[in-house]
């Protein structure tokens, strides 16, 4: 990266740490405070720390994998611009994930992403494929195209859920977010998240039985 300026590429350990021994890693709050004062290296460290989870949030909402990185970058741009207004009343990660979720909804709205033709029948081969996956402990087949096909099939089954329920289920079950985190991201209380998750699971299972189980 030739066009990255020196101060950006500098190590984040250069961030001045207040009231902490030099060896200890600064926590998020310290980095946020430094970033709010305009220290770019502090913000860079925040990006490094949170990029994986932000990708997981964005990946949980968006369908097309090729969009995920673009939107994740956008999330950090927005965070950079508005970090001065972050009042630290929540964890930095919570604030960031909220930006991520909103950015995803915006993205879907702008792109007017149309749902796949969910009701189209699954082919016999697809039925066999997903049944085999369910009945074994495999991770969805050895090669990437098998896994991609499985994802597409499950995506179609998930199409019968509301967008928000689908997102909740994927964030919880595939991306490993806690119900508390999901609640904060979507502004829902924990109990509501649990109940809705549970109903969404039931609905998905029913769709599966109707569209896959019925063929066997």
């Amino acid at each position: 990266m030739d066009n990255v300026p020196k101060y950006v590429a500098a190590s984040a350990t250069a961030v001045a740490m207040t009231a902490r021994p030099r060896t200890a890693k600064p926590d998020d709050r310290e980095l946020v405070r430094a970033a709010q004062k305009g220290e770019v290296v502090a913000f860079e460290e925040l990006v490094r720390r949170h990029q994986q989870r932000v990708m997981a949030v964005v990946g949980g909402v968006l369908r097309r994998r090729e969009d995920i990185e673009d939107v994740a970058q956008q999330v950090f741009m927005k965070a950079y611009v508005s970090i001065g207004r972050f009042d630290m009343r929540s964890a930095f990660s919570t604030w960031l994930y909220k930006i991520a979720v909103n950015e995803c909804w915006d993205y879907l709205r702008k792109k007017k992403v149309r749902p796949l033709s969910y009701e189209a029948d699954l082919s016999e081969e697809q039925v066999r494929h997903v049944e085999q996956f369910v009945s074994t402990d495999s991770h969805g087949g050895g090669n990437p195209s098998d896994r991609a096909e499985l994802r597409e099939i499950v995506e179609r089954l998930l199409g019968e859920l509301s967008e928000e329920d689908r997102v909740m289920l994927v964030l919880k079950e595939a991306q490993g977010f806690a119900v508390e985190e999901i609640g904060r991201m979507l502004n829902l209380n924990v109990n509501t998240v649990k109940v809705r998750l549970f109903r969404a699971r039931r609905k998905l299972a029913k769709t599966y039985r109707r569209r896959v189980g019925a063929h066997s």
Partner: protein
Amino acid sequence: MSEQQEQKKMAGCEKFEAALEDYASGELPRRDAKRLTVHLESCHECREALEDARLSARLVAVFSEAVDPGPGFTQRVMAQIHVAEHWVREQRSFWRPIEAWSWRLALSASLALALLFSYGLRSNAPSAAPEPSGVLVPQTDAFAVPISAPPSTGDEVLMAIAEKHHERY
């Protein structure tokens, strides 16, 4: 079974829904788990619901492959921020002279207006309600419509850039 029939059958079991969610993910505290186990022994519907929950978990697991942003991601974000910041600085230095110039123009326009107005007052002194002079109209317009609209804050411009990048897909 229709959803409605289902709800009816599950009536009384709703209070277990949140607990079943925790139970299915292995997060239910031991004491509550004991109570739920007792209920599960006698309730076919809840047992079935739990089976459904497990089946769904298995299905959704197809998405669990981690999306790895790779080591270059941070650099790309920071480079994008750098480009945007640079652009904002350039815009500021471009707008500054125009901004100063527009203020000067607005100042002289208001001065001219004040002169004309005081002149008009003096010359129209006998008439009670002077007709608005045609000369005045374009002058007042100089106030109604800002001559230049420089970006108000760097944040807004950065946001605009961020949006612009976003439009690309």
